[in-house]
């Protein structure tokens, strides 16, 4: 099988100028000073994309995803290594690149398509499709300057995605438009896939890779750290992202949380729980000087930051009174309803009026949920099914 894109040992170095020396005077004055640091955005990247593949690139900000796309599309040139491409490329690095506000939508479609490298003839054939896709039938002969930002990006997307390239390259632009339009974009991408075209795209929305990619590459600081099917790479990505986010702490420490443990049904520390199991969060604290009526609380969040559950002593109507010395607060969760996934636990101690934070530990610890059931969704809701034939 032929390769659509071959990236061979590509490295890309940027010069980070300390001060942007751009005028002649400065160049002469600072002639011998090396006013930059080397920054390697890509390090010996080796990627082969077969024809018909859909490859997702994921990674934290600054991991080199966009730089790699720009190298493939010849906007940037690698410092070392070679890139070979086979077939026409349409790159969606920015929607509506080169749109002229003073021209009409129609004129811009042709201009934009020719910037992307497609001829008038090709556009003529698909013009109606493009306009229909962008849902701009009524406005196509209006000046683009009068378009709303939604219309603007829809038109940009419609052009690029309807001109029928051999290789489609998309950078983080899928998140445009309302849900219906996004759905339409994904459908169109499916069509392109079915037509055997190659797609490479960058996204932070990892769920999308699971939906449409057959291969995913995760980059970190210019290196490929993981490569494989979405099923293999995505969990790895989530794990890595978590360790990236160092647990943040703040507060004036009048009450200090010295530790917290997650205990399972048997009372042993654990980091894995199954659906329906109980969990105790045992929080130890120390108070330097007696504090009046502190409030202890916790929350359980999933990897997206979505809070599954949270409560505190105040909400439960508990008044701790004057607290001093060391102590322990236990939150006893009778049954965890969550299905599979990784969750983090955040802890807090604050004053009753919530004006003063004594100690707040964001994502202090994590645990994994496992489920014997094959039910789908976030939570297990006991459900019996009655069938009356």
């Amino acid at each position, binding site marked *: 099988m032929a390769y659509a894109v071959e990236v061979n040992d590509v490295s890309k170095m*940027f010069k980070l100028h300390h001060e942007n020396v751009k005028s002649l005077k400065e160049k002469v004055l600072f002639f011998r000073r090396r006013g930059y640091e080397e920054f390697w955005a890509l390090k010996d990247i080796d990627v082969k994309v077969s024809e018909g593949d859909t490859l997702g690139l994921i990674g934290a900000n600054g991991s080199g995803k966009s730089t790699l796309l720009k190298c493939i599309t010849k*906007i940037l040139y690698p410092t070392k290594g070679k890139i070979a491409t086979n077939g026409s*490329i349409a790159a969606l690095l920015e929607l509506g*690149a080169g749109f*002229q506000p003073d021209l009409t939508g129609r004129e811009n479609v042709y201009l934009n398509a020719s*910037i992307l490298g497609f001829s008038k003839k090709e556009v003529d054939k698909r013009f109606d499709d493009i306009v229909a896709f962008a849902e701009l039938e009524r406005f196509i002969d209006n000046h683009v300057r009068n378009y709303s930002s939604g219309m603007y990006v829809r038109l940009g997307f419609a052009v690029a995605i309807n001109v029928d390239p051999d290789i489609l390259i998309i950078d983080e632009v899928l998140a445009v438009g309302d849900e219906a339009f996004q759905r339409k974009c994904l459908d169109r991408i499916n069509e392109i896939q079915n037509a055997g075209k190659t797609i490479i795209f960058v996204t932070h929305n990892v769920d999308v890779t699971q939906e449409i990619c057959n291969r995913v590459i995760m980059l970190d600081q210019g290196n490929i750290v993981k490569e494989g099917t979405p099923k293999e790479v995505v969990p790895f990505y989530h794990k890595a992202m978590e360790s990236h986010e160092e647990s943040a702490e703040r507060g004036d420490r009048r009450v200090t949380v010295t530790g917290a443990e997650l205990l399972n049904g048997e009372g042993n520390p654990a980091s894995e729980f199954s659906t329906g199991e109980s969990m105790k969060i045992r929080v130890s604290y120390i108070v330097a000087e007696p504090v009046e009526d502190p409030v202890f609380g916790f929350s359980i969040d999933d990897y997206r930051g979505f809070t599954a559950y949270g409560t505190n002593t105040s909400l439960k109507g508990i008044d701790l009174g004057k607290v001093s010395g060391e102590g322990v607060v236990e939150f006893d969760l009778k049954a965890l309803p969550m299905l599979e996934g990784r969750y983090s636990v955040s802890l807090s101690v604050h004053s009753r009026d919530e004006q003063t934070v004594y100690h707040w530990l964001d994502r202090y610890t994590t645990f994994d949920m496992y489920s014997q059931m094959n039910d789908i969704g976030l939570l297990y809701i006991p459900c019996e099914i009655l069938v009356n034939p």
Partner: protein
Amino acid sequence: MIAKLKDLWQHRELQYNMVVKELKVKYKRSVLGFLWSFMNPLIMLVVFSIVFALIIPGELSWFVVFLMAGLLPWLFFVNSLMQAVGSIVNNPGLVKKVYFPREVLPLGAVGANLFHFCMQMLVFFVFLLAIRWHFSIYIVLFPFVLLLQVFFTTGLVLLISAANVYLRDVQHFVEVATMAWFWITPIVYPFGLVIAKFGKFWPIYLVNPMTDITLLWQYIIYNPYYYAPKGGVAYISFWGILGTSILSIALLVFGYYFFCRTERGFAEQI
């Protein structure tokens, strides 16, 4: 460079669209629109006729024709330069986000100005026909002179638009330099004056390629043997033309070479 030329050829439609875009955008939202291309030279003709026929009459008969013969090409030259010098740095949205042969941008500026020049020449020639101008036979050289100027302009444009990406002084320099350049080129004064004042050093003047090109324009349009037999307007020499031609072609090749060499860094620099 051959591969680059092929690439440019494949993007010829984009090049065409870029020129059309420049023209369209220029006159969008104006009532007279395209007519301004004609108004410009027309008003110049009227004003110069009044000023140079009535207020400061010179020795040359039909000085307005002499002036326009050199001035219109000069405006084509200088407007191309001014518009092209910033064409890369002023389009970061394109250069950083899409691949296409970058020379399309400066060449688009030249193309749009070439179109304006042709329109202006059209108006000028209608005027000449109206006053029953005696054309010289050398008017057939029009395409050759135009080509010569386009080569010279394009070479220079490629050079400065690429250099400007790395050194923003270039665009300021071009502004100042073209102003000085205008006055050392015999556009508003006949070359005979230069010969008279400079003595035997006058050939230094021909080092300036725009002098040769301007003299050619005046020669083929103004018809000095009919209108100014003693005015010393036209000085053209075979060697001068040959030298300027070679220089223009060399500049075009070097300019394109320089552009191709520096092009890879554009997206990082702007």
